[in-house]
């Protein structure tokens, strides 16, 4: 059955829908303080029973090239001497029902001495170190590009500004959850995830298990947006408890826990200085990029600042660039990816400077972008490779959205940006044909993007078989030997290419066996093919958005029209494209108006999913979706998409809003106190 038919009939099998006999329900006792010394813990399962670090060496940042970090910043599964964020796990309790397990939380007793918590990037820079044995709160620090003396470069005007994107926790509608089931010396681990492989690696590394004794199986996954690509202490606890109590153990996160302890993204700040000529040409960029990495090196925090800095100059060919990238320890949950994961931050910082420059020089925002776009491929001083001329693309984009006309009548903001998918190191696919049915497995696990649609398109095209014979199965480590994950706008490129390869191989096998290919011959036989396609190059794409908005007399802003001109490479499914675009756009709109996690003195002020600013159905602009298909060098010619709307939307929208309010916007979510007027 099509996954959509299952879901509309309430027949999804999400992690909380799976029940085993004699199952225990796990609840987690979490720190109520942002920072405290623990002198004693009694009750439940705690660090006195099980004292270990958790980590996974595979995950989204690994697929972008991050390396392991230092031990002093690793988090224990159960807190030992200190807690460093509100929501940090200290103990776990197990009941026969979820009600019983929640009651048991009352039996845990912790003696704390609260300490002063570090709640922001500025406090981290200036405050005492969070971790004993460290000298400051710098988790990672890098310099990108080459430092330059401003006297040595050619410029007429220098501008400086500061920007901030507040933390956002992904908040998929289904929270995190897992069931660990240890039986016959095997650990079966069911989980809502973007990558069964990275969960498996994490369990093996954290519990020191043998690879062939762990099987990870994906349940239907109710959204993820980055948060289910990370590896978490709760997984280790559930697995450990199942081994200890010899029973299946289920953990389902509450939304309150999600807000406190799931890994949030964004949380990035930048100070940028640009040097430009009076014609708008930027000759130099200097910057400092900081991320709020949270209390431990667990998610993406150590790598995230560098990833933002690396792509700061975007599609613009700027001769001199030098950026310091610093990841800071704070008393908050460790940082992880949220859809975009550094890309929206980089574009926000740079594009805001370009708009500022346009205002100062009284130039049109499109013209400043045009003069800085490139006539030929180039490599930025920060290391970003752009394989095509960006100026012709921008010229076309402006024409296609009719920018010159629209911007005369409406408050139009634009965004011009690069999407860097996490295409490396490639991905796997397996196709099994048996009894006339076709089952597909992908190494990156679908979590609500509707990959089944593009999977069916590929196989229908290549093998001329009927769609209803095909199913995309959930992730399962016994079915796919090696896999990466579904994140970083990589699924169509990497997973799609692997599937195409396998489909062609199968076709060849049919020909070898029967002398010719026909769908009937294929379906009458048994075939089983697996392939990991290596991709060791970047598949960057250039993209453009325009957004218009208006303001009523109460100061209420309405997002009116949303335009895109994206380069998607070969499109595998138009339906998937539209769904990804519109779904991503509202997340970008949410970032601008409301989405955030807010802390004060180590205490989380954001109390509910409504408070976290997830938008309801009242923000639906008119969509004008356009794209072009310049094939990429990936085997199937695809480019990235999923994150593009989360990059372009905030950039274009804040510009449109500031044209309405005449107040310069430097922060998301937007705030109008401390106003600097637009000149």
């Amino acid at each position, binding site marked *: 059955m099509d996954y959509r038919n299952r879901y509309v009939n309430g027949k999804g099998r999400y992690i909380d829908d799976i029940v085993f006999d004699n199952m225990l329900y796990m609840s987690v006792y979490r720190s109520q303080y942002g920072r405290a010394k623990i002198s004693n813990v009694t009750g439940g399962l705690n660090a006195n029973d099980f004292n270990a670090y958790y980590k996974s060496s595979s995950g989204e940042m690994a697929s972008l090239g991050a390396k392991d970090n230092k031990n002093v910043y690793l988090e224990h599964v159960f807190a030992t001497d200190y807690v460093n964020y509100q929501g940090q796990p200290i103990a776990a309790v197990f009941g026969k029902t979820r009600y019983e397990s929640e009651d048991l939380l009352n039996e845990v007793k912790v003696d704390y001495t609260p300490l002063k918590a570090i709640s922001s990037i500025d406090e981290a820079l200036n405050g005492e170190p969070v971790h004993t044995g460290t000298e400051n709160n710098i988790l990672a620090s890098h310099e990108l590009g080459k430092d330059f003396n401003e006297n040595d470069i050619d410029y007429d005007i220098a501008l400086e500004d500061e920007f901030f994107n507040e933390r956002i926790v992904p908040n998929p509608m289904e929270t995190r959850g897992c069931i660990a089931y240890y039986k016959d010396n095997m650990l079966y681990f069911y989980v809502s995830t973007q990558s069964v492989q990275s969960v498996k690696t994490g369990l093996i590394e954290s519990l020191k298990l043998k690879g062939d004794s762990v099987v990870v199986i994906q349940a239907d*996954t109710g959204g993820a947006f980055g948060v289910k690509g990370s590896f978490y202490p709760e997984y280790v606890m559930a697995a450990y408890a199942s081994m200890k109590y010899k029973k299946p153990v289920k953990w389902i996160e509450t939304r309150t826990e999600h807000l406190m302890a799931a890994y949030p993204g964004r949380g990035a700040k930048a100070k940028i200085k640009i040097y430009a000529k009076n014609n708008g040409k930027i000759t130099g960029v200097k910057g400092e990029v900081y991320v709020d990495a949270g209390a431990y090196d667990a998610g993406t925090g150590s790598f995230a600042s560098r990833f933002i800095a690396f792509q700061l100059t975007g599609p613009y060919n700027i001769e001199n660039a030098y950026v310091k990238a610093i990841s800071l320890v704070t008393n908050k949950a460790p940082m992880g990816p949220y859809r975009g994961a550094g890309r929206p931050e980089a574009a926000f910082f740079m594009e805001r400077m370009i708009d500022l420059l346009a205002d100062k020089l009284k130039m049109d925002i499109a013209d400043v972008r045009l003069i800085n776009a490139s006539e030929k491929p180039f490599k930025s001083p920060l290391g970003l490779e752009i394989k095509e001329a960006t100026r012709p693309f921008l010229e076309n984009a402006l024409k296609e959205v009719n920018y010159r006309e629209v911007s005369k009548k409406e408050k139009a903001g634009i965004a011009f940006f690069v999407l860097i998918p996490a295409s490396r190191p490639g991905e796997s696919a397996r196709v099994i044909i048996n009894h006339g049915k076709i089952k597909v497995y992908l190494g990156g696990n679908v979590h*609500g993007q509707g990959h089944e649609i593009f999977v069916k398109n590929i196989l229908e095209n290549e093998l001329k078989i009927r769609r209803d014979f095909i199913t995309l199965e959930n992730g399962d480590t016994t079915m796919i030997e090696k896999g990466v994950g579904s994140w970083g706008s990589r699924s169509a490129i990497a997973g799609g290419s692997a599937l195409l390869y396998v489909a062609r191989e199968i076709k060849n096998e049919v020909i070898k066996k029967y002398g010719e290919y026909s769908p009937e011959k294929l379906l009458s036989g048994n075939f089983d093919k697996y392939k990991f396609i290596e991709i060791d190059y970047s598949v960057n794409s250039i993209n453009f958005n325009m957004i218009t908005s208006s303001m009523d007399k109460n100061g209420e802003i309405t997002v009116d029209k949303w335009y895109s001109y994206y380069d998607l490479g070969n499109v595998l499914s138009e339906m998937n494209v539209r769904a990804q675009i519109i779904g991503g756009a509202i997340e970008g709109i949410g970032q601008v108006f409301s989405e955030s996690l807010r802390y004060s003195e180590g205490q989380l002020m954001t109390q509910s999913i409504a408070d976290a600013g997830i938008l309801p159905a009242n923000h639906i602009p008119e969509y004008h979706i356009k794209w072009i298909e310049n094939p990429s060098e990936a085997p199937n010619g695809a480019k990235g998409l999923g994150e593009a709307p989360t990059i372009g939307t905030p950039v274009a929208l804040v510009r449109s809003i500031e044209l309405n309010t005449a107040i310069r916007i430097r922060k998301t979510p937007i705030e109008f106190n401390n106003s600097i007027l637009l000149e």
Partner: protein
Amino acid sequence: MMVNIDVNGKEYKKDIEPRMLLVSFLRDELNLTGTHIGCDTSNCGACTVLMDGKSIKSCTVLAVQANNHKITTIESDDPKLDVIKQAYVDENGLQCGFCTPGMIMQTFYILENNENADEEYIKKNLRGNLCRCTGYKSILDSIKKAEEKMKGEISVSK
């Protein structure tokens, strides 16, 4: 405590704890797992079901409060619900599917209560149902399509 709750036309007599929420009753006691839990602050609407035809959030109602009432869930085989479900499939009104049962039950309520629900009315009545995947446009399209189909069928049967 003994309760007697009619769910999708079938009566269930069960002895339950007084504190049990209706959503737990449906999911854990009856194994009707189509009704989901998305939050613990009654904000998300993933748990939406109908009680005597009115939409409620089953995470804010105790099972005992549903005693002697009629509950309709996504598992109901009401033909009108089938029209709505098909419209969601046709218009791709779902992605991960987690909000979907709640959305569909809320749609059912909206269309049963207003034959001429326009876009503003629909949006207003969807405020309690959050979706993180779709950006709501395809959901709105699904609801409008279901509305058209229902109207068509009503005029045919007249």
